[in-house]
C-alpha cells in the first residue's frame, strides 16, 4: 500500500512523492505549492477530524482528506 497524505497524523513531516490528481484538483494543489519534492508537515485536523491543515514552508493550507488522498508521500 502506498502512503498518502490523508493517512498522516498531526505532527508528522513528509516528502511529497507524486500527485495522482489531474485537472482541477491537481492544478490547484500545484498552484498552492504542493509539488513533488516538497517537504511538508501535517499541523492539525479540524475539530470534526476533517479537513486537515498543512504547513508548506511557512505557509499554511487546509484541505479535505478526500483531496489529500491523491498526494503520495514518504515519511522522513
Amino acid at each position, binding site marked *: 500500500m502506498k502512503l498518502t497524505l490523508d493517512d498522516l497524523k498531526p505532527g508528522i513531516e513528509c516528502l511529497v512523492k507524486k500527485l495522482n490528481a489531474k485537472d482541477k484538483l491537481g492544478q490547484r494543489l500545484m498552484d*498552492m505549492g504542493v509539488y513533488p519534492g*516538497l517537504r511538508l508537515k501535517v499541523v492539525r485536523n*479540524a475539530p470534526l477530524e476533517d479537513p486537515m491543515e498543512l504547513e508548506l514552508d511557512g505557509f499554511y*493550507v487546509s484541505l479535505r482528506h478526500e483531496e489529500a488522498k491523491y498526494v503520495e508521500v514518504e515519511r522522513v
Partner: protein
Amino acid sequence: MKREKRLVALAGQPNSGKSTVFNSLTGASQHVANYPGVTVEKMTGHYRHEGIRVEVVDLPGTYSLTSFSLEEKVSRDFLLHEKPSVVVNVADASNLKRNLYLTFQLLEMEIPVVVDLNMMDVAERRNIEIDVKELGRQLGADVVPTVIKSGKGKRRLLKSIRTASLSEKPFEPLRIDYGPMEPFLAKIETRLSMEKSLAGKYPFRWFSVKLMEGDGEARELLKKHLADPGQVLELADKERESFESEHDEPPEKHIAFRRHLVANEISRSCIKPKEGKKTPLSDRADKFVCHRFLGPAFLVGVIYLLYYLSIVQGYNITNYTWPLLARLRSLTEAILPAQGFIDEPLVRSFSLWFVDSINALLNYIPIFFILFGLIAVLEDSGYMPRMAFILDRLFNKFGLHGQSTLPMVLGGIYVGGCAVPGVMATKGIPDERSRLATIMIIPLLNCLAKVPLYVLLINIYFAGYKGLAMFFIATISLLMALPVAKLLTLTVLKNRDTAPFIMEMPPYHIPTIRGVLGRAVERVWLFIRKIITIVAAIAVIIFVLLQFPGLSDERKAHYTMEKEKSITAFYKKIKGNPYTEKLEGENLMALVLYWDEYKTAKMMTTGEEATKLLNQKFEEKNPDFFKIVQPKKDKTAKKVNRAFKKLFKARKKLLREIKKEKIDNSFLGRLGHSIVPFTQWAGFNWRVNVSLLSAFAAKESSVATLGALYQQEEEGETLETRMEKGEAGFTSLHALALMLFMVLYPPCIATTIMVKVQSGSYRWMLFSMIYPIVLGFMVATLVFTGGTALGLNGLQAMAAFFGLALGTTIIMGFVKNRPISM
C-alpha cells in the same frame, strides 16, 4: 507635457495586501462593477501622477492564472484583451517564494511588470532579508519594496509605474526554463508564429505554454482566431502526448514543477538564510482557535457577538433612526391633499404606501451598517478561513461548504437575520455547487421579518409553551434547510461545477479602521442602489393589486349614506349649541383632522411639560376646536365633545369596513378566495391567503394585512384577541401549519434581486421563489391534513414534525454526493 492616460492592472495572490495597495493608490475614486457576464466584482479607480491620468483595475486575488477558476480566468482575460500598460504585481515579501509562482506567469504574458514587494515590515520581523536589487536583476523587472499600510515606498512605486508605462524599450523579463520541455515548446511556438492572424495579439511563448498545459481557454482562443485551428491543435496534442510518454509526467505538472523550482532558486539566491525558525504567532493562536473543544466554543462566541452587536444593538439604534424616517413620512403627508371623511384621495394613499414601503427597508440600514462592518473585520482579521475549517465537515455532508458558515449566520441560523446580506456573502464560496445550494437555502432561515408572525401565532395558540415553540421555530428552519440543500445538490445542482476545498490559512491581521468602515459604507451603498429601486417598483404593483378594482358604485353609495347618517345624527345632537355654527360645512372635516392630529401627537408625547407645550400649540392653532377637544368644565363644549366622539368612532368603523371590503374585493383578495380549494388542505382560509400573498413584497406585511382583515371591534383591542375572536375554528394545528409555511416562505423581493445578482441568472431567481412555495405547501399540508387525520393537536404535531425533520436530516447526512471532480 501633454496629458496622457494609462491603464494599470493590479495583480497578486490573496493576502498579499493588494487591496491596501489599491486603496492607497486610488483613494476615494473607486468604482465597483462586474466583469461582463460573470459575478466577479471588478474594482476600478484612478489617480493622477505628474501629468498622467492612471486608471487602475484591481484584478481578483489569485494564486495562479489557469482557466480552472472564474477569478483566474477573468484576470487572465483582462490582461490578454485589455492590454494594460503595466501590471503591478503585489507580492508578500514574507512569503516571496510562493508569490513568485504568480509573478512568473505574469512575466510570461509580456506586459511590463512592476513588482511591489509589499509587507516588508512583516518580512523584517521574521528575520527575512531580501536582496531587492538582485531580485530585480533576476526577474528583469523593477522591484519596489514597500510597506503600503504606512505609506512607505509609495512614492517610489508611483515613479516606477510611470517609468514602466512610458518606456519605449521592449520588456524583456526572465524566461522560465522549462528544461526538457523546451524543444516541445519551441515546436509549438514556431508553428504559432506562422499564423499571421495571431501576430501582435498574443505572446507566442505564453500561448505555447498554455497549449502544452492543455488549457481549455487557450484552445478556444485558437478556434476563434484561426480559420483552420485543427492543424495547430493537433500539433499541440501530439507534443503533449510525446512529452508525457517520454518523461512520464503530465506536461501541466511539469510546468508547475519547473516554476516552483525556479522560484526556489531565485528565493534562495535573494534571501539571506533565516536564523532560527520559530513558530509564527498565528500558528500558536490557531492552537486555541482551531482546538477540538475550544475552537467550536470560540466560534459560537464569535457568532453570538456578531448577532448581538448587529441584530440586537443595531435594532436598538433603529429606535433613534426611526423617528427620522417617521418625520419624512409626516412631511410627505403634509404636502399631500387631505383625507376626506370616508374617502382618501388616491394620490395620498399611494404616496404614503410608497413612503412606508421604502421606509421599511431604510429602517434596516443601521443593522446592515454594523453587520457589514463586522464582516469586514472577520474578513480582514483572517478568521473567516478558520470558521470554514471548523465547520466544513458538517456542511460538506449536506452538499454545502465550510464557507457557507458566514452566509448562514447572516441569514439567521437561529432567530433574526436577513437573507439579503446572507446571499451577498456567498460570493466567496469557490465551489459553484455549494455556493448555489447556499444561496437557495438562505431564504429558509429565520430572517427578522418572519418573526412578527411567529410571535403573533405563538402568543395566541401556544401561549402555555412560548419558549418551547420559539425553540422549535428557531431550530426547525435549520433542520429543513440542511436536507433541502442536500436534496438540491443531489438533483438540480447535481452537475454543477465543484471545486477543491484547498484553502490558505493566512496569518492573522489587525484590521484597519479605514478598511473596515470603507467596506461597510461601500456595501451599504451597494445595497441601497440595488435594492431600493426594485422595491419601489414592486411596491407600486402590490399597491395596485390591493387597491383595485375597488368598491362598486353601489357599495360606495351605501357608505356615503352611512356617512350622511352619522353626520346628520351629530348635528341633531348639538342643535342649538353655540359651537354649532363653528362646525358647519368644511369646518366639520377640519375638526376631524384636528382631533386626529391632536390624539396622535398626544400619544407620542410623554411628560407633563411636553403635554403642556402641546396643548398650548393646539390652542393657538384653533382655540374653538381646542375647547371641544379639551372641554374641561365648559358644559356646552363637553356636550359637543361627547357627540363628536361618537361621530369620530363611527367614521373609524366605516374606514375599517371600507378597507376590509377593498382588500376583500381587490385582485389580491380575489386570488386569496380562489385558491382556498387548494389551501384548505394546509388549513389556510382566504384571510390567511391574502396576508400571505401580500407578504411577497416584504414579510412584515403579513401581520399588517392580518391586522387590516381582523377589524377592531373595540378601541385598543390587540390583534391577538381580534384574531382569536375572528377565527373561532382556528386551532393550534392551523397555526403550526401556517408557521411552517412562513419558515419556507419564498424570499422577499430584495432577496430575490440579490439571488439574481449572485447566481447571475433569472432562472435561479425564479427557482428560488417557486420551490419554497411548493415545499412549504407540501409541509403545511402534511402537518395539517396529516395531523387532523391522526387527531393530533398543535403541540403533538410539532413534536412529531420535529422528529421527522431531525430524522430526515440525519439520514440525508449519510447520503453521498458525487465526489469532487479531480
